[in-house]
């Protein structure tokens, strides 16, 4: 994986091949779990980074839940390599991985991602068929059991924000739900999207403030400050409903309601030049700056056990 090109976009097969190479290079640090299968039958893989112990407190990071946001999957690949490079080298990061596990799901919507390469580069949703409709797919970030079906999602199967027939109808979502519930010791959950340069915390389906709002806000401020320190990329931060708009059935609203306090969504570069068609030349700088924010959140999670 030293000669893998992190500065270009890759196909699903290339990414899955990268995962296998990384596991083969670091068998005592990295393992590949299959947490389910997609609607079209593709395996859903999660990389586990662990230095021992059993069911340690863990941090979850996912990228690519909206398949067209290619800079997020590309950043996920870079994060995976960074973890193997920094463990044992960077003291702050080594302290984290000595005590906690990291789960990284790089391609969270494999069917949608394959479709962006084969048929429609701008595809965002899953590829499930909705009975009675000619339109395909559900927005996997409106399908979670948190305010599901409320204002902030569409009941129209042709809409980009269609919430699906019922919560967790999408196997890509249900697989994560089952994994989180069975693991039971995840302490931070970070779901990465693009674009708009935002760091968001719950809630999206209600204006009620999260119970830990003050701490989440403070930590978000530290994280975006760390991010900006590299290239000056300015992120705004706040609750989903305040920073952007009402969105129901969202990932981190569900994880927060599961008791995972440090639940965040990133909206990576840019602010409106390319949108999610970010040129490949910006992949590595985007991943590098985001990593500084992730480190801030992971460090805080390590130092504030609950």
């Amino acid at each position, binding site marked *: 994986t030293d000669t893998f*090109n992190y500065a*270009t*976009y890759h196909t699903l097969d290339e990414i899955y091949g990268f995962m296998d190479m990384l596991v083969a290079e670091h068998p005592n640090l990295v393992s590949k779990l299959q947490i389910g299968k997609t609607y079209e039958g593709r395996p859903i893989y999660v990389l586990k980074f662990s230095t021992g112990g059993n069911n340690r407190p863990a941090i979850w990071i996912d990228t690519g839940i909206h398949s067209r946001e290619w800079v997020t999957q590309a950043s996920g690949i870079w994060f995976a390599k960074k973890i193997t490079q920094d463990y044992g080298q960077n003291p702050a990061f080594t302290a984290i991985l000595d005590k906690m596990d990291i789960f990284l799901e790089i391609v969270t919507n494999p069917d949608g991602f394959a479709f962006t390469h*084969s*048929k*429609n*580069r*701008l595809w965002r949703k899953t590829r499930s068929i909705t009975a009675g409709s000619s339109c395909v797919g559900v927005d996997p970030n409106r399908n979670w059991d948190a305010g599901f079906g409320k204002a902030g999602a569409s009941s*129209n199967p*042709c809409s*980009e*924000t269609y919430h699906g027939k019922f919560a967790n109808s999408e196997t890509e979502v249900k697989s994560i739900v089952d994994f989180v519930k069975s693991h039971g010791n995840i302490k931070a959950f970070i779901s990465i999207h693009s*674009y*708009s340069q935002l760091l968001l915390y719950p809630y999206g389906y209600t204006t009620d403030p999260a119970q830990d709002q003050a701490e989440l806000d403070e930590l978000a401020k530290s994280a975006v400050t760390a991010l900006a320190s590299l290239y000056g990329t300015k992120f705004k931060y706040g609750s989903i409903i305040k920073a*952007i*708009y009402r969105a129901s059935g969202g990932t981190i609203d569900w994880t927060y309601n599961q008791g995972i306090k440090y639940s965040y969504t990133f909206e990576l570069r840019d602010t*409106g*030049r*390319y*949108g*999610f*068609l970010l*040129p*490949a030349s910006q992949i590595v700088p985007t991943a590098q700056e985001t990593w500084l924010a992730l480190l801030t959140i992971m460090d805080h999670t390590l130092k504030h056990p609950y």
Partner: protein
Amino acid sequence: KEDFVGHQVLRISVADEAQVQKVTELEDLEHLQLDFWRGPAQPGSPVDVRVPFPSLQAVKVFLEAHGIKYTIMIEDVQSLLDEEEEQMFAFQARAAS
């Protein structure tokens, strides 16, 4: 493979609640086939929407008729996709050799 020649991404600036409402109405007109990259939110928060070529004229007339300001964020979506694809293939060709 879906083709996006002539599709533009407009960045719409909504000045007040009434304008947010107007843009939200657009979202419901399915025949326009609009793809909101950033949905209508609150006044001052930009709305980015990909407009297929056949709907461009109608959408621009609608916005101008309601005094809603917009700029063109992406002139032609397909040309960006072509650049992206060239970059990927150039890498793959080098990797193959």
